[in-house]
């Protein structure tokens, strides 16, 4: 087929309209969410004292951090789905969850505490946290990558890593309602390790899957 013939064929297909990447990502996340929710409610469940915990600002802070991570991850993912886009000028979105967490650590430091710092940092659920967040995020990551395949990222590994961040953010939002460790120090340590793991998986899979 010569190039003129190909051009004629492409022009004939002009009436086909693809959905925007944001729409594809939303559909894929909505399809993946029930899987993670099912895993969460059958294996973990919300902590029993959740009504009391909600009055603890550090319990609420966990959701501010994880949701900020999820939302900024979605925003950056959609930005990077355009081939001419780069992280420049958009990377600061990812600093928002880190900033909230840092402020939380500062706030906790200024308050009198019953437990020493290392005890709060190590917590009781570090192992559950490090396995539950990656496990819960895998269905979401699969959905996110399938949705983002509609895009055209210039650097698929970077786009995959950001998909990992958004999946970890959503999974950690679920997990945070189960976990009884509310110290920002615990979040900064174990949630971060779990998120780094998911981000690495996202980068590895994305580098193949998101190539266009």
């Amino acid at each position, binding site marked *: 087929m010569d190039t003129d013939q190909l051009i*004629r*064929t492409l022009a004939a*297909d002009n009436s086909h309209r*693809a959905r925007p*990447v944001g729409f594809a990502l939303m559909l894929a996340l909505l399809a993946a969410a029930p899987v993670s929710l099912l895993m969460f409610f059958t294996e973990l469940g919300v902590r029993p004292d959740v009504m009391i915990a909600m009055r603890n600002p550090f319990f609420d802070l966990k959701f501010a951090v994880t949701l900020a991570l999820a939302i900024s991850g979605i925003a950056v993912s959609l930005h990077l789905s355009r*081939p001419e886009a780069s992280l420049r000028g958009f990377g600061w979105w990812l600093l928002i969850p880190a900033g909230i967490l840092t402020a939380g650590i500062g706030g906790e430091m200024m308050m009198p505490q019953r437990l020493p710092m290392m005890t709060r940092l190590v917590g009781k659920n570090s192992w559950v946290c490090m396995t539950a967040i990656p496990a819960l995020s895998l269905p979401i990551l699969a959905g996110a990558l399938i949705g983002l395949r509609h895009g055209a990222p210039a650097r698929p590994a970077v786009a995959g890593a950001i998909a990992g961040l958004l999946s970890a953010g959503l999974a950690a939002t679920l997990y945070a309602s189960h976990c009884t460790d509310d110290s920002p120090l615990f979040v900064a340590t174990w949630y971060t390790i779990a998120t780094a793991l998911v981000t690495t998986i996202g980068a590895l899979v994305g580098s193949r899957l998101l190539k*266009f």
Partner: protein
Amino acid sequence: MRERDDEWTGLMRSAIAGDSAAYHRLLKAVTPVLRAAARRGLARAGQPVDQSEDIVQDILLAVHLKRHTWDVSAPFAPWLFAIARNKLIDALRRRGRRIFVDIDDFAETLPGEMPAETASASEVAAQLQTLPARQRDVLQSIAVESASIKDTAARFSMSEGAVRVALHRGLTSLTAKLREQ
């Protein structure tokens, strides 16, 4: 350059709004620029430039299937060159060379150095043969025999909608096959 870029952007906006003739004109207009850049990339990698047409077709397919990622309010050229650069790097890598491709390779092509098509492409044609019969028939009818969608529908006693679906699926799987090879 500025004028050319504005013209492209205008054509692409019309194309997105449903004007297939504008889309055809746009693809015709960008092809020589893509060809010049592909040749330059191949030459710099020490590869025979007669493979440039395969790269051009690869870029055109990607432009077509990813055009929904273009922001209608943005200029078209940077988006086009980003797609083209990505595909050119891929093509050179597949031929075993890692090479730095500058975005200016596309942007700075002068009208005087735009070569006409000389060598024919073989990759798309080869992959075409591996498509399901229905998609291949539809693609061949429109591409080679330059039949309209309507004529193609009548010829294979399909509905026009079914022809459109087969055409789009054919182009999508053609692109997927090219990527996997």
